[in-house]
């Protein structure tokens, strides 16, 4: 078949036209924005159980709110915040998204979130535990609702403990090991385990490096003063926390690849039986039930000056430029209602944020007998601990912490240098 140049050009023109029209259609409604006047867009990541919980909650909300619809947009966790940042910068952000407590300050401090105080009842915060309500506020204004929480406790290999002669572990928060007792357990395990197995793996890898602050809180310290600008890590508590955690590496109590920048996570080290115990959150329970080739037990984190733990879990936020602020706030309040939260937490093995559910006997599907350790541990998070994460500089502080702990743990950097560099780095981060 002969095709003339004119025909080719005509075809190219037609294809170009189609492409141009498609592009125009694409510009007309960004993917993240809702089309309907009563439609909310909600971006989240989640496990199958979590997404199921969201879908049930959305269906219930739509039934209870005639005319309202919620469009759920699921993205992989690895891309979640790069996507959200790009959408916020380009004005194509969703109405609502799932965040983490430790990055709320980043968004709230840069005017990206909706001030919920004008849309929620004045006593709305009373239904949540104090640390979590504190965690969703910036400058005294709520910018999120605390959806669920999570925290780390010690998960241990019962057989490895028994073989090392450790026959009992603390069963109540009040009887949790002190640092000295915990250290003695680590040393005992070290002496009984073969050279290529280790007593402990800690879950401070990658973005979770802020879990190191649990040691600082347990030592009675803090990383920022109340102004959220002045560094407070240069203290006896700071030195004690660095000294203690650094010694894990010096004494071979953890594998050398358990440092903060390692690509190997603590849970992998634990489930592969390389470590006899690991710090981990409730989200590990399904894996502990199905993957671990040994029986898993749990106990509380050790305490020093006081108990302390990490602030895990997720708040939900509405974006500052949402065109439906009332509806968005209504949806957020609905998601934190008693029945909705109870359903979500039990299905997903996560901890509630509501005071009236904290004492509830949650029936986790996997290893339900271990749930109470997480609930108890979560109560050691203090409001003043949570408040420090409201700093808009937490992202930059995370980088400083990661660099300096890596140097201290496997780079041979001394405690004094580490504390000085941490303090200088945090000061520089909050000054930006």
């Amino acid at each position, binding site marked *: 078949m002969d095709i003339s140049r004119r025909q080719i050009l005509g075809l190219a023109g037609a294809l170009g036209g189609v492409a141009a029209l498609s592009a125009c259609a694409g510009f007309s409604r960004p993917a993240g924005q809702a089309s309907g006047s009563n439609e909310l867009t909600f971006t989240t990541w989640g496990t199958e159980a979590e997404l199921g919980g969201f879908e049930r909650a959305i269906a219930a909300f739509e039934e209870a709110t005639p005319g309202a619809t919620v469009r759920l947009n699921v993205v992989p966790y690895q891309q979640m915040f790069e996507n959200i940042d790009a959408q916020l910068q380009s004005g194509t952000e969703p109405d609502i998204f799932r965040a983490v407590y430790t990055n709320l300050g980043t968004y709230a401090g*840069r*005017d*990206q979130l909706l001030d919920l105080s004008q849309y929620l009842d004045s006593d709305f915060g009373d239904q949540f535990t104090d640390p979590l309500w504190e965690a969703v506020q910036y400058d005294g204004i709520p910018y999120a609702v605390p959806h669920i929480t999570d925290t780390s406790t010690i998960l241990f290999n019962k057989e490895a403990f028994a073989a090392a002669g450790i026959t009992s572990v603390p069963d109540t928060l009040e009887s949790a090991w002190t640092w000295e007792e915990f250290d003695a357990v680590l040393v005992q395990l070290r002496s009984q385990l073969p050279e290529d197995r280790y007593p402990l793996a800690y879950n401070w890898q990658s973005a979770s490096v802020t879990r190191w602050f649990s040691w600082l809180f347990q030592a009675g310290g803090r990383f920022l003063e109340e102004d959220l600008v002045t560094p407070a890590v240069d203290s006896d508590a700071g030195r004690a926390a660095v000294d203690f955690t650094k010694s894990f590496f010096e004494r071979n109590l953890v594998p*050398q690849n358990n440092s903060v920048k*390692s*690509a*190997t996570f603590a849970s992998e080290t634990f489930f592969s039986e390389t470590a006899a115990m690991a710090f981990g959150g409730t989200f590990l329970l399904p894996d502990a039930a199905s993957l671990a080739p040994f029986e898993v037990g749990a106990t509380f984190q050790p305490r020093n000056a006081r108990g302390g733990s990490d602030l895990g879990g997720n708040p939900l936020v509405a974006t500052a430029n949402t065109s439906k602020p009332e509806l968005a706030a209504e949806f957020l309040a609905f998601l934190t209602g008693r029945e909705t939260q109870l359903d979500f937490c039990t299905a997903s093995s996560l901890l509630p944020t509501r005071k009236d559910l904290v004492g509830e006997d949650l029936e986790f599907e996997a290893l339900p007998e271990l749930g109470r350790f997480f609930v108890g541990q979560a109560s050691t998070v203090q409001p003043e601990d949570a408040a420090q994460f409201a700093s808009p500089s937490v992202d930059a502080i995370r*980088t400083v912490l990661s660099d300096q702990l890596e140097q201290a743990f*496997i780079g041979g950097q001394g405690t004094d240098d580490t504390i000085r560099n941490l303090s200088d780095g945090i000061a520089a981060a909050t000054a930006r």
Partner: protein
Amino acid sequence: MSTPGVETATDATEAPDPLEHPQPQRGGQRSPGRRRAGLRRAALDAAEGYSFLGPNLVLLGVFLFLPVVWAGWISLQDTNGFGDGVFVALDNYGRLLADPIFWQSAANTLLFTVLVVPLSMALGLGLAVLMNSVMPARGIFRTIIVLPMVISGVATALIGVLIFDQNNGIVNKIMRATGLGAISWQSEGIPAMMSVVLVSLWWRVGFNMIIYLAGLQAVEPELYESARIDGAGGWNQFRYITVPMVGPSTFFLLVMNVIYSFQVFDIVFVLTGGGPGYSTSVLVTYAYENGFVTRDQGYAAAIGIVLLVMTLIFTALQWRFNRSRDQVG
């Protein structure tokens, strides 16, 4: 056909196109009508050319040139990405000069390039020569070598984590079993960089082999036959025929491999995260950390612009000094 040197005005197939190469009229003048027709034809040709180029130019403009210019503009600002940035002129570039981690990342990028580029090309050429010979089941071997090319860098790096995990990785298990002792792939700088280089080689050698194989298959067998008659052995044939004849492939691969090495990200990010410390940090992982973790996006853009300039300078130098680029392989 015209006789060379005796071109006739009636030979339409050989005569230059008067519209593309207008010939002077008698007395050096053309009529205004013919000049207008010529211009019209030239304009039509240009329009056709641009209509073919148009879609690609639009794509390149929107997705390549515009982001580069935009990154250059952001690199002159102090910005966390939200709201308007503050114009700081060249401050971000000044900070780079005094930043030891930037220099370490630049040195690591250079080290990675110096190791991966020649090794991947040498291995690729060696394998291509092997696969170009009469070898049983070479189709299967070719597939095995090229297979990593079709796997994403992230997946390759995840496989690398399984291989180089210092507690449970395959390499250390074999080394322990053979009494050699384990290597600290994840907690010491030099082994960590070695693991990155080895995984990158595994990923890149297949691409190099394919390009060299294509080059080798264009080499006339008579050249080798002549060399053999003249008494050249295997090494001399390789040194004096194969290597020069695949010169254009070498030039192409050198430029592509250097650009890849300067831009390496996924393997480092997943395999070592730039650690331990900053011992495997490269410019792109450092830019990512500044841009998306610390949210110092002006500084991250400055690192990106420096990387772009480095790549352009290297490519320009190669283009200027590599004589084999214009040869036909």
